[in-house]
């Protein structure tokens, strides 16, 4: 039987977002309350969507979805001088990977994490991976809106 996430499980991802922007850019992100993403609900996907597939004691996915402008700003903060689509895809995947990896502090090594891949049509990509509804965690950084979508169940 698959067990849906508890609120304290989701809190781990909220903390990971806060920590990521502090450490990587030196600037805080404002993270709002997580909510269940109903099928047919508002479209939250952005220009770039980096997906991590989860395996092991859990299954599902973690997807970081952000507009190009947010990612360009993060790249700039990291000292990048190249702003191609490839570089934006690289950083959106790296953020998804870093947020998922930090969650292993809470879930342990049973949270298997794949290398990131880019999704062009995210809603069809994540629905197949877990039966429960995904959580969306909205954030704002430097005036840009982005979302972390956590679609995860314990096996």
């Amino acid at each position, binding site marked *: 039987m698959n067990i849906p996430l508890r609120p304290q499980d989701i809190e781990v991802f909220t903390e990971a977002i806060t920590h990521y922007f502090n450490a990587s850019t030196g600037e805080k992100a404002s993270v709002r309350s997580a909510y269940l993403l109903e099928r047919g609900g508002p479209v939250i996907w952005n220009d770039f969507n980096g997906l991590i597939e989860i395996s092991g004691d859990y299954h599902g996915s973690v997807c970081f979805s952000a507009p190009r402008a947010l990612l360009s700003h993060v790249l700039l903060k*990291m000292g990048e001088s190249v702003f191609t689509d490839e570089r934006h895809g690289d950083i959106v995947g790296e953020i998804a990977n870093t*947020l998922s*990896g930090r969650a292993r502090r809470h879930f342990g090594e049973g949270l298997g994490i*794949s*290398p990131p891949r880019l999704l062009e049509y995210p809603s069809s990509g994540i629905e197949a991976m877990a039966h429960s509804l995904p959580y969306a965690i909205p954030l704002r950084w430097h005036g840009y809106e982005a979302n972390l979508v956590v679609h995860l169940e314990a096996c």
Partner: protein
Amino acid sequence: MRLNQRPLSMMIVDDSTVIRNRIARLVSNPQLPLIRIAGLAANGEVALQMARETRPDLITMDLTMPNMDGEACIEEIARFLPDAQILVVSALSDKATALRAILKGAHGFLHKPFTDEELLESLVELIA
């Protein structure tokens, strides 16, 4: 680690171009001894081949990568380059993963996301 007149050579292994570039930029910091970048690799398979060819003194190693992951790569490199100092730079934040990487031959572990200062401190400790 042997410190002599020649610059230390360093290989950077990470599947993110942005992270490889960031680490490469930071190693030119004057807090560190002169370091020459021996190569950049996007996965463990490429890193293994590059390590055989360039025999780097220092390696930064990601863990979650396609083809061959960082743990398997560390284990292999530690066999034929036992003096290479390996710093794991990974998002995987559980203690068991860090411990396993150290047992396989890594000498340090830096969690992503890292600040510039944290990377420099880790490299200074690695070289000392």
